[in-house]
């Protein structure tokens, strides 16, 4: 069955696969995680705020994002972002947005919903006495969040945040629906050009598996180290 497989196609396409494909995937993962974390923390703070309206808006947003398949959101955003840009800037025609920008915005918005729930749990894990002590010292709400609550919440949640980032790393492969050459997209382009579907998809799977596995192992090690420090 494997007689007519040609694994040399992988060697020949390595530069394209990694320098173009994987670097795009990693960049998208990194920036999305960062943006998702910042935006997600804001949503978490909104959800926990004493202003009911802010809380409901944030809650609605999270429920909305989490009830939609990611592929659909990617699709919708790709078609919507140019029009939203037009509406925001008042331009006469839709703004041209690159596939990278569009997918980055999508992932930040989408991941923010998930990160916000993680951060919310993290903030709630800090005992009420901590912000009370910060207030008693004269720190404002913003200062208490920035110097006391969020650093602790972030530390408590770091393993979960990193695990979510590994999931995000795998999810970025969904941008193939926009025919963007991320790692999977690049592999599938080579596969179809050379008619080597089995080889390329096997290799892509192996690479995703290897990276995710190593990263998960790293998170477990980190978790053990944090546990000792406490």
């Amino acid at each position, binding site marked *: 069955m494997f007689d007519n497989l040609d694994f040399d196609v992988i060697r020949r396409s390595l530069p394209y696969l990694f320098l173009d494909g994987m670097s795009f995937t990693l960049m998208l993962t990194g920036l999305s995680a960062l943006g998702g974390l910042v935006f997600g923390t804001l949503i978490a703070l909104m959800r926990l705020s004493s202003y009911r309206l802010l809380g409901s808006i944030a809650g609605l947003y999270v429920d909305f994002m989490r009830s939609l398949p990611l592929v659909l959101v990617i699709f919708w955003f790709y078609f919507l972002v140019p029009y939203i840009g037009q509406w925001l800037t008042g331009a006469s025609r839709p703004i041209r947005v690159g596939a990278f920008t569009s997918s980055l915005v999508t992932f930040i918005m989408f991941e923010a919903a998930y990160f916000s729930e993680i951060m919310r749990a993290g903030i709630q894990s800090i005992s009420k006495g901590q912000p009370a002590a910060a207030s*008693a*010292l*004269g*720190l404002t709400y913003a200062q208490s969040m920035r*110097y006391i609550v969020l650093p*602790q919440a972030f530390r408590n949640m770091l393993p979960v945040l990193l695990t979510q980032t590994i999931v995000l790393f795998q999810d970025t492969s969904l941008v193939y629906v926009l025919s963007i050459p991320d790692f999977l997209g690049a592999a599938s382009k080579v596969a179809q050009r050379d008619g080597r579907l089995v080889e390329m998809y096997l290799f892509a799977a192996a690479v995703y598996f290897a990276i995710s596995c190593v990263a998960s192992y790293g998170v477990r090690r980190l978790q053990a180290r944090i546990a000792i420090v406490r």
Partner: protein
Amino acid sequence: MIEISHVNKWYGPTFQVLKDCTTSVAKGEVVVVCGPSGSGKSTLIKCVNALEPFQEGQIILDGIKVNDPKTDLPKLRARVGMVFQHFELFPHLRIIENLCLAQEKVLGRSHDEAVAKGNKLLERVGLTVHANKYPAELSGGQQQRVAIARALAMDPIAMLFDEPTSALDPEMISEVLDVMVDLAHEGMTMMVVTHEMGFASKVAHRVIFMDKGEIVEDALKTDFFGSPRSERAQKFLSKILSH
């Protein structure tokens, strides 16, 4: 210094935790607040620096009305030190950083100035060698002394203590009380919620006894220990002093 008048507070629509509480703490005075658990003493002390809101009455702190919506609460709180039952040191910061954070961020002191002040206060509570440790590496008594030093670093005009020794092992209570006795002798204005009657009889000027949200007795120390007027205070004292 602290004027509490006719303060009423409810949790929810029906449960009243504070009932018409009126008392005051003069400059340089040490007032001990005692009473059975659930009597509202912790809630009352937390109302003084507005950590707890209340619905009726007013509290005036050094001439400033605490429950006025126009009052700059962070600024007001920075002037009153508070020590909590569970220390509430910031676990992710070193001891010296715990002492410096608010000095720098709230009072705007330079880092060097804050560190110098912090070290001076650590020396005072006898913990200089622990400056670079994290709170979890210290015993409960040491943590509470750091918490007192952290509050003193802000040069407070008064200190509030909310059951500062209740979470401590018996052998650590005296090291914390020693620091508080010294403070009292220096003339610090103090409002102390505690069950330590030894501390009360040693340094308090007045004792307030609370029960079920009411200030039942507000008397000079000698009167309170000598001949409490109310039956509830008598009962409480006989229970707490019988062992």
